[in-house]
């Protein structure tokens, strides 16, 4: 256990090395949110009859969704790089679980993003815009739980995509397809309320809305009490399903590595 915490710590430090990239990421987050808010404002003004509460709801949604989207971003090419460089063999030479090792690495990066990206961004925007507080204390706690579950859904989905590096020479296209699907279907940019019913029905069959839309809806108190448990359950189910697929693929991948030598 201590070893994995240490890996997370090193990974955190590793991220600190890249100052220029940090400022670029921070700027990117701030500007993306700014642009999105401007678009929503324009839409509302066009529609006329600007309802203050509704607009604050949108503002809060957009800021939370895009901020979470930023911190859920992961280094998608760690496994691919390890396979190409042969370093994956060195990882297997450690008395550690490779999957926990990999997760600790991403966990360190996540902490880095929370401390250095999420907090400054939220602070900045809560000063400039009217960001709604959580619906209630209970909902806020549920929100925190749901965000953590959302992260695991995202991670399990990503892990499957990353593992494809064992079979494909390049994972770039698959990563791009996944990113686009997440961006559009997860409600990271457009809340599901504004999507056509049929599309929403489809999305509810996928894991995508469990990543961002469920946690933020909980924060805003948009999920009725009787559906709350079901929403959290959907997140757990997707973590289990994607986790199992990842597990099977990982077994196949290691067998291939061990027989084939990467």
């Amino acid at each position, binding site marked *: 256990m*201590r070893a994995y915490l*240490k890996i997370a710590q*090193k990974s955190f430090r590793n991220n600190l090395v890249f100052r220029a990239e940090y400022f670029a990421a921070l700027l990117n987050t701030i500007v993306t949110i700014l642009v999105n808010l401007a678009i929503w404002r324009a839409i509302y003004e066009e529609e006329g009859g600007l309802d203050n509460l509704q607009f604050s709801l949108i503002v809060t949604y957009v800021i939370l969704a895009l901020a979470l989207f930023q911190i859920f971003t992961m280094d998608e090419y760690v496994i691919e790089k390890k396979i190409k460089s042969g370093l994956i063999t*060195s990882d297997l*030479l*450690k*008395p550690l679980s490779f999957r926990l090792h990999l997760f600790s690495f991403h966990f360190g990066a996540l902490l880095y993003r929370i401390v250095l990206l999420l907090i400054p961004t939220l602070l900045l925007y809560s000063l400039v815009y009217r960001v709604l507080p959580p619906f209630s204390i209970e909902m806020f706690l549920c929100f925190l739980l749901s965000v953590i579950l959302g992260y695991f859904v995202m991670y399990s989905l990503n892990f499957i995509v990353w593992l494809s590096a064992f079979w494909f020479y390049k994972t770039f296209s698959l990563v791009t397809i996944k990113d686009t699907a997440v961006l559009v279907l997860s409600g990271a940019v457009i809340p599901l309320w504004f999507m056509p019913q049929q599309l929403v029905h489809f999305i509810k069959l996928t894991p995508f809305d469990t990543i961002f839309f469920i946690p933020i809806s909980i924060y805003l108190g948009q999920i009725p009490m009787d559906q709350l448990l079901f929403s959290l359950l959907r997140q757990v189910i997707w973590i289990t399903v994607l986790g199992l697929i990842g597990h099977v693929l990982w077994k196949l991948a290691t067998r291939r590595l*061990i*027989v*084939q030598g990467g």
Partner: protein
Amino acid sequence: MLIQVEQLVKDYQLNKNQKGFFHAIKNLLMPEYQKKRAVNGISFSISEGEMVGFIGPNGAGKSTTVKILSGVLKPTSGKVIVNGMDPFRNRKKYVSQIGVVFGQRTQLWWDLPAEDTFDLLKTIYKIPDATFKKNMDMFSEMLDLHEFLHQPVRQLSLGQRMRADIAAAMIHEPAILFFDEPTIGLDIVAKERIREFIRSMNQEKGITMLFTTHDMQDIEKTCERMIVIDRGDIVCDSKVDEIRQFSDSERKLTVKFGRQYDRIELPGAQMIKEAGNTKTFQFRTNEVKIPELIAELMSRYEVLDLTVQETDIESIIKQIYEGGAPAYESVS
């Protein structure tokens, strides 16, 4: 025996990549594999405290053997027992008892100072503070690590990086070390340092070592025993001294003749090269004495110039690769 390898075979599967779209689809659905034998039924054993050099040209199967010995690659068939364990079956337990260095890659965190990797290894292997400090001090002194321990690894020279990598593989005091081409790409000075360190670790700590190289100098300067591997087969396994003795007695005689001779007969020497009137012969000092050979030569032919050369181990190895060196068999 600490390391025992019997009839070890490793076949890789190569994807028969035919060009074209339909072949690509077919490959995806019904992959067609071609077997490529990398290690062809080799056997050897290494006892505790021994230091063995594994030498062979590129593609001989050295890295494959090291990977199998370190438990990251599954043998196709054959038996491998190291320290009473099957490296592949007991991988998690096994890997903390060995150290492995791959010369072509680094286990150090690339963007962080090397000391961060050491700090991490300390936790991973649960090394007690005192042991860790003792080892770090020793490595710092012997390998001058302190000079660059605080610098990000990506800024290190290849030689510095290699030294840090070797120390990283040894920080948990493994009883057995495998090196895969630890001196590749280094300059003479850097190579010499690493050889010296490896040698002293073997002699002082009694660590059993096997290292691969394609540089004969590495072996001559560090090992007592060498195994020559070529195209997956062991072609020679013997004491370096014996090969040295063999090479010590072998000489090459290059003679420039004053005129054209169709046939030259020189008892005890074989002609191995011919370029115009300059011809090269090979002989052994325990079969013919040099003065006698030269006297014989002078009395029979018109000679303008001659040189006698020693054969180095390197050219003996070359002959072994090329399937030559028939006389060598008497030694092994």
